[in-house]
């Protein structure tokens, strides 16, 4: 609330500053023009020499340039400031989400520990409690590592392990892996189409992308999860589409969902957990692969489709894809030599 107000004050201050500068510019032009007219009328008859020298065009032009420069600087400073404010806002969102995500499993672990230490809990219940604690520690572990991975991702410090795969095989295998992780029934995820081409991917990274997409479908499907994975291709790229029948995304929110720390507020959302990092992470990983991820939804209640485009090996983005393979080979060499030592 306070931040909204301070942004409003900033905008008002900015608009006033603009008006002040424009008024000054106007005054400056007005002053020059009137003086020039006076010199024209009076200066020439009095002293022709004075009329030629006095209205110095250079000073006039420099004055305007100076004012325009200050104006541009102000616009840039204002833009920068609003971007900063937006980032701070998003960061606050993130802290709020992460603290919720951290505190919930932590409270649960604390509750079970206190229960086990203060009460006589039957053996079978104890086992159930230990399982619950394990689930919570896994959740904490996953959350912490995802935050750390994001920072690595941003500094491009992740050594990707790129290899050439048949798109059909690897995609089906990885999607199946994600489905198993979320204990989705075999009928929940269906495959359609084919993309019998080679592509260069890091299977672990792509697994993260698929995990995030399936986890989203899982979280935002009020009823049974129903995902259709469509494979297709054109001459240069393969396409993987994840179509679910979940709650959908409002068109105005579709652009924002890949932004860092972004979570869309929606009263129809059946699940409110998350850090706002998953889709940002997915977009960055796909970008590293030389591809693109986009989202499409007809609106609330109409399901969502995520579409991933990846270049076909030796057909599209050759230089970039080969550089990924070279980097992997180089990394492997370094690892092998360090193993040998």
């Amino acid at each position: 609330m306070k931040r909204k107000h301070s942004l409003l004050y900033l905008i008002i201050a900015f608009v006033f500053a603009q008006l002040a500068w424009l008024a000054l510019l106007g005054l400056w032009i007005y002053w020059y023009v009137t003086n020039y007219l006076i010199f024209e009328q009076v200066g020439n008859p009095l002293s022709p020499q004075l009329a030629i020298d006095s209205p110095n065009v250079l000073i006039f032009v420099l004055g305007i340039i100076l004012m325009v420069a200050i104006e541009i600087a102000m616009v840039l400073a204002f833009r920068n400031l609003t971007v900063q404010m937006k980032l701070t806002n998003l960061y606050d969102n993130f802290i709020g989400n992460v603290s919720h995500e951290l505190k919930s499993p932590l409270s649960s672990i604390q509750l079970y520990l206190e229960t086990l230490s203060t009460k006589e809990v039957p053996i079978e219940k104890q086992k159930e409690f230990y399982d619950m604690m394990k689930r919570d520690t896994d959740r904490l572990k996953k959350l912490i590592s995802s935050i750390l991975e994001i920072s690595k991702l941003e500094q491009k410090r992740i050594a990707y392990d790129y290899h050439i795969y048949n798109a059909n095989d690897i995609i089906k295998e990885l999607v199946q892996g994600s489905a198993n992780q979320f204990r989705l029934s075999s009928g929940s995820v269906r495959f359609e189409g084919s993309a019998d081409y080679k592509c260069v991917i890091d299977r672990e990274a792509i697994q993260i992308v698929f995990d995030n997409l399936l986890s989203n479908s899982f979280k935002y499907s009020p009823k049974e999860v129903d995902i259709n994975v469509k494979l297709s291709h054109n001459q240069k790229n393969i396409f993987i589409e994840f179509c679910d029948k979940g709650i959908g995304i409002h068109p105005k929110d579709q652009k924002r969902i890949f932004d860092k720390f972004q979570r869309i507020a929606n009263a129809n959302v059946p699940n409110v957990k998350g850090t706002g990092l998953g889709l940002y992470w997915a977009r960055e990983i796909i970008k590293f692969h030389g591809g693109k991820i986009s989202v499409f939804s007809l609106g609330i209640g109409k399901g969502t489709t995520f579409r991933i485009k990846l270049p076909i090996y030796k057909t599209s983005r050759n230089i970039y894809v080969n550089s990924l393979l070279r980097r992997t080979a180089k990394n492997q060499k370094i690892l092998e030599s360090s193993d040998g030592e």
Partner: protein
Amino acid sequence: MENNSFKGSKILLAEDEETLAVGLEYNLTDEGYIVDWAKDGKQALHFFETRNYDLLILDIMLPYFDGFEIAKQVRTKSPQMPILMLTARTSSEDKVRGLELGADDYMTKPFHLEELLLRIRGMLKRKHWYKTSVELSPVYRFGKNAVNFENFKCKSGSKEFELTQREAMVLKYLIERKGKIVSRKELLENVWHISTEVETRTIDNFISRLRKYFEPDPDNPVYIKGIRSAGYEFVEGK
């Protein structure tokens, strides 16, 4: 387990974190309470509308309807229902909002089991105190005002209105100690059953609302007097 005189009380637990809910359900059941667990806001409201409860434990970040919305809806239908908010949100704005919407208590995660159980017992005790003392004399009159502590309906001259449960409890507490100074801390501890540093503003808000309802001139109160740096005092008036 200590002897719990509120055994058999029915508690609605609205919590979307399964692991936490299972642990809470176990402990509350072990204390002798009967617990219904709602996994989201929709289910919590459905349970509340179809069953009877003695106390509600609400998480704030719930799917469909958040804890604030549930508290608001519960308050319109059951002004006396004790509500405990149990949440990871720690900002004082959230606390004040929760308490003003009618929550009786606010605990942040992670929490200590013993403290939670004590607070639940305290809330049930207060509900019992309120219920029994109201049963004895439901309507209280002072000046041109009449307050029914059972249904919170009030009359001030020809004006008729309804108090919230919290407003009624604050007023009742002050009336029961008429002629004595009641500190803000005492009100916090005995009406809200909390002792934190941020809520004195909330108390002052409640007092100023009560003055608007009952005082002929709220700026110069004759019934609910403020005693500088000490608290408040209820004076019956002439």
